[in-house]
């Protein structure tokens, strides 16, 4: 395993390895066989037309057949070797990228739609690794076959070797143009695609709301505008591709005519002359696909840049225990608590004039005070941008404070190892992830030693009792990708069941009902408050209804000093 090497930079685009070079050599043999097949066929036919004794043709006949069979054979070997190399590479880099993501989770993954960011990471990594097969291998094999063809023609007739070499230069130029066109058009195209996806998603999801206010025309106009931008970006990209597609036949034409004019059948013989005239066409056709590899290269470079930008970030929280040992440690209570714990071992969490920032530049949470005692239920409300999610991130130890004091039982949390600080806290966000696997496995990740009764109890508390009895295989029912679908309300309740099962003393809920309809939202909220009666709860909500059911309402918008700095 070359994991240590991969760890150094998991996102380098092209890094030839022994396997990819071997793949390139095999690919070169396959491409050369293809060129040789055309050339020797030409030689055979011309030599045959001179009506020699059949025996003298035998060698050529054998050669034609051998090249015909060698091409698929070498191509098969090349594909096996290069794909295996790519998959090995993918395995190494996945481990490296996953490890690199852990300390950045969740605060450095963007504040919205983290699962989309994470899906993007998986796709970008695949692009980068695919470039190994789709760039390195064809480049090596193309260079090998092209130079081989040039050398062979030069051996028969040096001037024709130069002609083939000139054709190779044209091909290389085509590659450069293709790469440049792809690289320069890629960003605009991706942005245009993203905008089309955003508008399409919005209209698909909000069709009813848009119809309610008679905004169908506006919606379709917005879609039309997004499509127009996208159309322009694709047109720009296709101009580059079309330029290259037009360049290659012209290069082949020039090289073939030059070969026909320069070759002298009297010195090399008619059959070889035919062979030499056919070589440029064969080279042009065999190497034209190289241009496509430049698309893969440009794409992988874009993906690599995005991955690097994401993975190069500093973690948003400092871990005094060091990043490598943090989760290996078992959470223990730190000695020297100055404020004794109340019932149930739940910590007393205090924020005093705490401020926080995601970027370090713009303050996302203005000075805020909060005292969180066990069994206290706090609702956090306020307009968008007032710092609700930021406050929750601070409480979850996902984000360090930039000012003020954040203490746990009187101890500054920055002194606690992250694993310890997080061990008391469960976070239920607006899109709890359901893993592909059994229901039991989905719950046990919160507490691996829980028995089935504990799982059932947690599900019942989260309001999933009736749902469980309807499941065909009970706790063994497979959920997630490839398994049973889970509705938005069930998903949120599963998140709550995890929190209850893990016996976390503090439960933080970030808009758990944001994607639910009103009736479901009310029912889920009932179950949340019921299931967490003995715990400290902080709930961020856009819905001001049912606020009377909380012990305390923290309105971040009411506080004049808590308005975020506007730029």
């Amino acid at each position, binding site marked *: 395993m070359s994991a240590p090497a991969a760890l150094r930079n998991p996102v380098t685009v092209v890094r030839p390895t022994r396997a990819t070079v071997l793949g390139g050599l095999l690919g070169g043999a396959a491409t050369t066989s293809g060129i040789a097949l055309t050339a020797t*066929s030409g030689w055979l036919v011309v030599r045959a037309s001179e009506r020699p004794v059949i025996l003298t043709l035998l060698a050529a006949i054998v050669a034609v057949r051998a090249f015909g069979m060698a091409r698929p054979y070498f191509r098969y070997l090349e594909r096996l070797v290069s794909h295996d190399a790519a998959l090995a590479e993918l395995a190494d880099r*996945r481990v490296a990228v996953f490890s690199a993501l852990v300390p950045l989770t969740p605060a450095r993954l963007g504040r919205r739609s983290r699962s989309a960011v994470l899906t993007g990471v998986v796709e970008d990594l695949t692009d980068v690794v695919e470039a190994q097969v789709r760039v390195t291998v064809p480049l090596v094999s193309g260079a090998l076959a092209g130079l081989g063809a040039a050398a062979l023609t030069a051996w028969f007739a040096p001037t024709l070797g130069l002609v083939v070499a000139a054709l190779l230069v044209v091909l290389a130029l085509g590659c450069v143009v293709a790469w440049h066109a792809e690289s320069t058009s890629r960003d605009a195209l991706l942005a245009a695609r993203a905008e089309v996806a955003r508008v399409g998603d919005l209209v698909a999801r909000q069709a009813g709301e848009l119809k309610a206010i*008679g905004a169908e025309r*506006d919606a379709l106009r917005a879609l039309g505008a997004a499509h127009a931008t996208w159309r322009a970006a694709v047109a720009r990209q296709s101009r580059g591709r079309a330029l290259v597609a037009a360049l290659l036949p012209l290069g082949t034409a020039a090289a073939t005519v030059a070969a*026909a004019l320069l070759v002298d059948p009297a010195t090399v013989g008619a059959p070889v*002359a035919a062979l030499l005239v056919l070589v440029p066409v064969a080279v042009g056709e065999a190497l034209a696909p190289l241009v496509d590899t430049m698309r893969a290269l440009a794409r992988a470079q874009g993906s690599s840049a995005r991955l690097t930008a994401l993975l190069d970030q500093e973690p948003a929280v400092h871990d005094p225990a060091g990043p490598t040992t943090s989760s290996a440690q078992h959470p223990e209570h730190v000695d020297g608590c100055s404020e004794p714990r109340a019932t149930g071992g739940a910590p007393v969490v205090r924020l005093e004039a705490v401020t926080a920032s995601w970027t370090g530049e713009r303050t996302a949470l203005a000075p805020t005070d909060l005292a969180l005692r066990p069994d206290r239920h706090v609702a956090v409300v306020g307009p968008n941008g007032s710092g609700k999610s930021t406050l929750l991130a601070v409480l979850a130890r996902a984000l360090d404070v930039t000012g003020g004091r954040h203490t746990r039982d009187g101890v500054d949390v920055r002194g606690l190892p992250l694993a310890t600080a997080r061990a008391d806290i469960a976070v239920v966000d607006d899109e709890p992830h359901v*893993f592909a696997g059994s229901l039991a496995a989905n719950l046990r990740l919160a507490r691996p030693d829980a028995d089935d009764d504990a799982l059932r109890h947690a599900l019942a508390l989260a309001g999933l009792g009736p749902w469980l009895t309807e499941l065909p295989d009970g706790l063994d029912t497979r959920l997630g990708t490839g398994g049973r679908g889970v509705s938005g309300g069930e998903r949120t309740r599963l998140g709550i069941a*995890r929190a209850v099962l893990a016996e976390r003393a503090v439960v933080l809920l970030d808009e758990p009902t944001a994607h639910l309809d009103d009736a479901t939202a009310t029912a889920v909220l009932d179950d949340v408050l019921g299931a967490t009666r003995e715990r400290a709860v902080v709930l961020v909500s856009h819905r001001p209804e049912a606020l009377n059911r909380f012990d305390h309402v923290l309105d971040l918008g009411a506080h004049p000093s808590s308005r975020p700095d506007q730029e």
Partner: protein
Amino acid sequence: MRPFDPRLLAVAPAARRPVVAVAVVGVLQGLATVATAFALAALVVAVVDGTPVGAPAGWLVALLGTRSALGWAAERSAARAGVEVTAALRRALLEHWLRVPAERRPDPDRGATLAGQGVATVEPYAARFLPALVAGAVVPVLALGALVWVDPVSALVVALTLPLLPAFAALIGAATRDETQRRWRALSSLAGHFTDVVRGLPTLVGYGRAERQVEVVAEVSGAHRRATMRTLRLAFLSSAALELLASISVAIVAVTVGLRLTHGTLDLGTGLLAILLAPEAYWPIRRVGAEFHAAADGAEAVADALDELAAGPAGRTTPAGTPAAEALGVRLRGVHYSYPGASIPVLRGLDLDAGPGLTVLTGPSGAGKSTVLELAAGLRTPSAGTVTAGHAHLVTQRPFLPAGTVRDALRLGNDAPDADLWAALRRVGLEGFVAALPAALDTPLGDEGVGFSAGQRARVALARATLSTAPVLLVDEPTAHLDGPGAEIVHELLSELAERRAVLVVTHRPELVARAHRHVGLEPRAVGATA
């Protein structure tokens, strides 16, 4: 799965021209390819015979020049077809969903996935697979036709071996189908594992399980590599077998040509032409196969979208309200409504009249108040009974505000000038607040701009409603998020609007009930009573 469904061109007329352009360019490229073989053969014969190369070289340059132009056109038309087919299909889907009532829309997640990732896979299908399909259909036929004309013997060899390719592919496919499917299933679950754990990373980190997953990722990636290689070996082997078959066929043509040349039964030009044309008959077929695997998702998305568009009789797309679009009011007669999939109806035989003036609708949670508004707005169709309503504007409990500026939010559904926007804001008591924003109407809303509270959002939605010209205004709990003075402004506004329009409001505020001309009380799952 169908490689090409002609219904696509019927539902997406904008896709017709680009698809035809791709087909025309594909046919011309096929003709040019075959013609190039003639010119190249003539050039080689001229070189070998020592005759002047001027004429064949001129032809070759002209033809390759044509291919250069066609190559340009092919790239451009393929890219355009990719965009136009995808855009037309997405637009058709979204137009359809904006037209039909809620019962006939898929659930939001499925709809968004189909219009998003689903339709996006149509682009490579249209831009890469369709041109390959045209080439696969045209070039072999042209090459074979040319061969029949110049050298029937070689044509016979090609005609006998060519059908072996699809036959062989089908045989290999049939022999390995079960094995391949079993492996693909195993493979997709292994391949999905990494995506799954990465997407669940926030949860894993939250419960301190992330670092333990590193080993699992390494293990599963290793298993994925081994399983993929087993599957790929089979796939590569079958494509190598097909390529071998094609290569051997070309070699047979070359060798028979060679033998006939030595016997003097064939001239050099014809022989050369035969060996140049023979490969052209084989490769496009293999390319269609290769591209089809890449475009299979796109073909599937096309089928899904077409099914979605074809679902239900077209006659029902008209919402119940439009026949009387000019009517000033809402009239429900014997209306039953059940949510799709629900066994108990939420409304049973409801009669309701809301003419000009202010009508309030009250009732406990779950009685179907919002459903009545959605029926009146034509967003839902009754299970039984009739709904007659004028063109309506509905302000829901969670009104939609787009990501954009305050002006964008207000002008959704109308083209009002700024003066009217300010007047509307004044009527809901937000004029001062918006005027004090850093860029007034141009201030962006949301994460990157100013945050609006739930009450402010409700008032923006009401301001937007005043800008609508619809004769019927439906409002769902307008003051749920407002305090006393705020609610008073809204109540005043609704009374004012009711002077010229039919206003139907769902509310629980006695102050508003007191202002109403009519009061309809809904009981939980019971027949409505008019008071």
